[in-house]
């Protein structure tokens, strides 16, 4: 799969968040209110710090999604837009 265009490798069964953390420690999203950078934190679906865009779908919790071949993952910048295609 890819993150911001760069290749990311994952083991079978690993979550997208784990794979992203394994890659490096750069922010995977910025927050809507302060714009601060965040990376996956709780790894269990409660902190929402792991939000990314996966295959065009914004605000996906990366720790709750299993990594799959070919996923296109992008950084989530701030809040998502209303309506499709954001």
């Amino acid at each position, binding site marked *: 799969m890819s993150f911001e265009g760069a290749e990311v490798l994952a083991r079978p069964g690993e979550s997208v968040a784990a794979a992203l953390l394994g890659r490096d420690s750069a922010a995977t999203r910025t927050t809507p209110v302060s714009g601060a950078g965040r990376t996956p934190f709780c790894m269990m679906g409660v902190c929402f710090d792991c939000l990314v865009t996966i295959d065009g779908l914004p605000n996906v919790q990366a720790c709750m999604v299993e990594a799959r071949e070919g996923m296109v993952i992008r950084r989530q910048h701030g809040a998502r837009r*209303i309506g499709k295609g954001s």
Partner: protein
Amino acid sequence: MVPQSPTAIIGGGIVGLAVALGLATRGHNVLVLDGSDQDMRATQGNFGLVWLQGKGAGHAPYARWSFQAAQAWAGFADWLSSLTGIDVALCQQGGYEFFTDAREFEGFGQELRQQAAALGEGFSFECLSQGDLSHRLPGIGRAVVGATFCPLDGHVNPLRLHVALRKAGQAEGVRFVGDARVASVRAKAEGFEILRENGETICVSRVVLCAGLGAAHLGPQLGFCAPIRAQQGELLITERVADRLPFLSSTIRQVDEGGLQIGGTKAEAENDVETTEHMVGLAQHAVQVWPRLADIRVLRSWAALRVMTPDGYPIYQRSTDYPGAFLVTCHSGVTLAPLHATRLAEWIDEDPAAPKLEAFDERRFALS
């Protein structure tokens, strides 16, 4: 031991804190005793509306009281911010009630005409047909048959309001004690004796009971009937979105930080547990009103209990048996907060300039 305090407020929700702020500003020594985190607290589960539409159509004093409160909100928000540095995010640019049923739309229009008759000049509203509405809000759902609009309606961030009231009170000298449930209150020859659940006794010269649903239990000890009941309301919170919704309605609002609050159910229930049926209904309603919300995710939901009187209007009651004891309770404590912190405090103080509030006397329930 807590030193003697002339006025105790029992209950530290938005009602108790607003009254405390008002009395402290008038120079009183005020102590707020608030209950436990397990209590049902409308203050922490509400919808944050500063709302006029439909308030008091059948009761002119309530229509006027709500109207004055809405007009006082801007100044009140500035005052809170000057005392605390907290911006409660007041936005009062008008609000919509959307209807998907033509008869309900018609009926509500009548109610607003009645309300306008009670209020006279200064109150205006519009009834918008589907055509008018889709012109004004392109993107509105086709299921919406019409809407009413009132330019004075608005909203605040209710959690920040709660914090701001507490800090503002403290800035004016209010002493706040949390986790201080009151077991009983007793009138003495002079003043009152408050017994806390932890066994501590506090003597005060005045008591204002603002304990929300807890007033039903404490009220009779001071000679009040306190006829209040819980009315459950459920709501949904969505993920934050970058686009600003072009409207505020009584059921869909976007908080200042971007998330949407979708709400408005009413159920006679004593618990604060959500029901799937109501949540589905809320989500469907939101998508009917604004179809573009269809793929927005819901992150959280909760149910909270309203503090309801039999007719829905506030109770402001001076005890006839025990001078110095007051009962203050209402639904719409967000909307009314500016008056609770000013005019109601004057009334509790028996200031000659205070408004006449007999219309909110709880004896109305005994007479009817």
